[in-house]
């Protein structure tokens, strides 16, 4: 019996040792990407080890780790898979665009030294910068620009980001002309979007889409090193970068699902940056001198949209009661600790073509007495007015504040917090009665974003409940005009929305970044991008 017991114990020991060795290497698979993981794990390990037992020696440190809940995994925007905001963490550092989108939403010259727009707004001519090379050493030319736009337009997000794009014509090695089917004022924002990151045609011809996705190259400040699914992505500084080699030599984008862990890791020095922590977490960090944070307006509008086609909201007076009965400052205090901007119209102030009171925008002030008058004049008889939000989000906080405010003026308001897929489906199909609070994000930082909820061109698909064909016409004219000529259309459209009380624009969403205080030049970006090339310890 003793023997048997000894055998069992010995077997147990062997199992543990096998487990230890397997767990340590973390690689039992055979894929190229996973095999590359070992070097990266050790890079992460070096960085992690340096920061566990004592304060990290920040001076001269050239590796940073960014903690994020969302994982980037699509590294070729022009491919057949749609890429999103998380991917932009990597894309915006691997690739450069012809124009750059700055943290405040403004545009500056990128791979194009300059550009002109034809008088009819149908042709954009870009003069390319010379002497720019891809990570494989090949020069960037007009061929690559044409390839990027032609391929990108055919992809799943082409129609949304390269709106009205028709063709790209090569004039000479360093000049291209982009032709549009119809004028589109926000086109430069599409050029500066994730889809506009210039890819290398010759390399694509050599490796194909799959090869490009697995080992992407661009002209950006960082080169791709490896991606380990569910764990991290590593980038290394591109020493021949045309704006100079970045001081931070290695960037590790670490997937950390738990937000508490992200912040504790930042405070402990395990991570250098935490992506977009919530504002209440940020304000708690004020007491920690080792950590700093900042925020900026994102391109998201938090808006409450009402179902004017059914339920109590089909009565205009009821909608106007809701509109006048909402105190946006209280919502701001509850959901964003007062850091967000309140919105008068369904546009962010950083949008191109943004219109203000000076341009003729009408504003509805918070007035509970007026709200009660509107309610009395309506046919409302105490029916339930439900506000749909996705559970656990900031929008739910907004909805609860609104619920209290509307109940005060006599509306039987309820908050329906549902899971994300149900929430998305209900909104996309406009399958609801009452109100929906949505965060309308716009990749194109332009007033044209407002058109999304008013498209009559897609009625048949049942995707969008179109309210007023007049609104769609106005916004179509707004996107076709250039400069200040756009403003009258947007003013008129926004005033119709306010007068009819279709939507109640609430707040401009914000984007935040928290980082080790020794790390310099970290700025929150309106689209959540990170200019790692500017950072240094």
């Amino acid at each position, binding site marked *: *019996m003793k023997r*048997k*017991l000894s055998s069992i114990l010995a077997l147990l020991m062997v*199992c*543990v040792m096998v*487990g*230890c060795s*397997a*767990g340590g*290497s*973390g*690689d*039992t*698979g055979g*894929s190229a990407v*996973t095999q590359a993981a070992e070097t990266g*794990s050790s890079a*992460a*390990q070096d*960085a*992690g*080890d340096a920061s*566990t*037992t004592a*304060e990290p020696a920040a001076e001269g440190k050239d590796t940073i780790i960014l903690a994020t809940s969302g994982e980037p*995994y*699509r590294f070729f925007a022009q491919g057949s*898979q*749609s890429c*999103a905001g998380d991917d932009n963490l990597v894309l915006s550092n691997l690739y450069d665009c012809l124009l750059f989108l700055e943290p405040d939403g403004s545009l500056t010259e990128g791979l194009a030294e300059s550009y002109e727009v034809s008088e009819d707004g149908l042709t954009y001519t870009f003069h390319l910068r010379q002497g720019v090379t891809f990570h494989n050493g090949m020069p960037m030319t007009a061929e690559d620009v044409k390839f990027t736009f032609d391929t990108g337009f055919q992809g*799943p*997000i082409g*129609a*949304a980001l390269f709106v009205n794009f028709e063709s790209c014509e090569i004039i000479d090695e360093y000049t291209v002309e982009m032709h549009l089917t119809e004028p589109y004022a926000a086109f430069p924002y599409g050029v500066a979007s994730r889809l506009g990151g210039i890819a290398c045609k010759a390399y694509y011809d050599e490796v194909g889409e799959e090869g490009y996705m697995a080992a992407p190259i661009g002209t950006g400040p960082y080169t791709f090193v490896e991606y*380990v*699914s*569910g*764990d991290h992505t590593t980038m290394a500084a591109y020493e021949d970068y045309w704006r100079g080699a970045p001081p931070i030599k290695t960037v590790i984008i*670490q*997937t*950390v*699902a*738990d937000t*508490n*862990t992200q912040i*504790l*890791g930042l*405070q*402990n020095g*395990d991570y250098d940056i935490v992506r977009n922590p919530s504002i209440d977490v940020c304000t708690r960090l004020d007491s920690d001198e080792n950590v700093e944070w900042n925020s900026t307006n994102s391109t998201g509008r938090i808006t409450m949209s009402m179902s004017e086609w059914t339920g109590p909201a089909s009565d205009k007076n009821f909608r106007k009661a809701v509109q006048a009965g909402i105190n946006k400052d209280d919502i701001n205090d509850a959901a964003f600790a007062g850091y967000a901007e309140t919105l008068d119209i369904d546009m962010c102030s950083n949008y191109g073509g943004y219109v203000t009171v000076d341009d003729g925008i009408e504003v509805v002030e918070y007035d509970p007495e007026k709200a009660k008058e509107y309610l009395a004049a309506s046919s409302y008889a105490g029916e339930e007015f439900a506000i749909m939000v996705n559970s656990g989000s900031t929008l739910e906080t907004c909805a609860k504040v609104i619920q209290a405010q509307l109940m005060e003026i006599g509306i039987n308001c309820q908050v329906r917090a549902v*899971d*994300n*897929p*149900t929430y*998305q*489906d209900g909104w*996309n199909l406009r399958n609801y009665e009452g109100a929906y609070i949505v965060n309308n994000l716009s990749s194109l930082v332009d007033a044209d974003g407002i058109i*999304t909820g008013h498209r009559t061109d897609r009625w048949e*698909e049942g*995707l969008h409940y179109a309210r007023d064909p007049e609104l769609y016409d106005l916004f179509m004219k707004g996107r076709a005009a250039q400069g200040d000529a756009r403003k009258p259309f947007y003013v008129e459209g926004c005033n119709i929305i306010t007068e009819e009380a279709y939507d109640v624009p609430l707040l401009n969403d914000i984007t935040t970044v928290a980082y080790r205080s020794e790390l310099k030049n970290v700025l929150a970006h309106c689209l959540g991008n990170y200019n790692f090339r500017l950072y240094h310890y």
Partner: protein
Amino acid sequence: MNWVKYAGKRLLMLIPVIICVTFILFLILSAAPGNLARQLLGQDATEEQIEAKQAEMGLDKPLLVRYGLYMRDVVRLDFGESWINGESVLERFQNRLPYTLMLSTLAMIFAVAIGVPLGIMSAIRQYSLLDYGTTFVAILLFSLPAFWLGTMCQILFCLILRWLPTSGITGWKSYILPTVILGANTLASMIRMSRTSMLDVIRQDYIRTARAKGAAMQVVVRKHALRNSLIPIVTQMGITFAGTIGGAVVTENIFTIPGIGTMLLNAVKSRDVPVVLGTVIFVTIIVGIINLAVDLICALIDPRIDLAS
């Protein structure tokens, strides 16, 4: 050869279990609201694009047909690819399993190495200060949820004392906190189980006889009581080891360990059906094998257990 036959039978029993588990999961995942294709493609996708995506994902076929096709592929060891990033489910599982096995094994060793001796000692010295102390600790560990205990330990050991890393796998130190947190609950059950089991045994007549013959308590415990009290403890070890693999979901999430727990959680969140189904099948097999191993070990410890019957 009895045990070989027995093991073979038990492994075959896993087949209907897997069919039941996957079918129930398939039903639940299909009944969940929301159009997955539309979510993946975004609001700007056209109806044609959505239909094409649904066809690509196989969602255009009836439920039973989809289930049948899936199980046919599983038999061929093709667990499909993730709907989110196209990665092979089997490959991803293989890459992540070592982390979870390592963590679960360490947690079990931690719980058994501390829990069993403590439980036995508190049984031998029933109603002593040690007994009350261990009972109190056991109840405390049972009651504290892992996510709370984990965060508190992170604050104390990482932020204040700066002894350990908060998360990730960056060396042996990274396993200390996750092991303790994952093992805490198991430790509590080990203390309780070994205490109860030992109390049961030392009240038996043969122990009283041995003591009456003048044998020292230590000798009686070591020679007569220990082996007899081990059966329920080993059974409990098997059950809790299977439990720690499931419990790793929370611990891995708190400490950012790239194991199957985080993989499953992320897949459920994004409704990545092939990854959820694949992972559940693998975990079912692992749990089945662990339970089988426990039965075999019990038979080795106690010859009275006849596997053939």
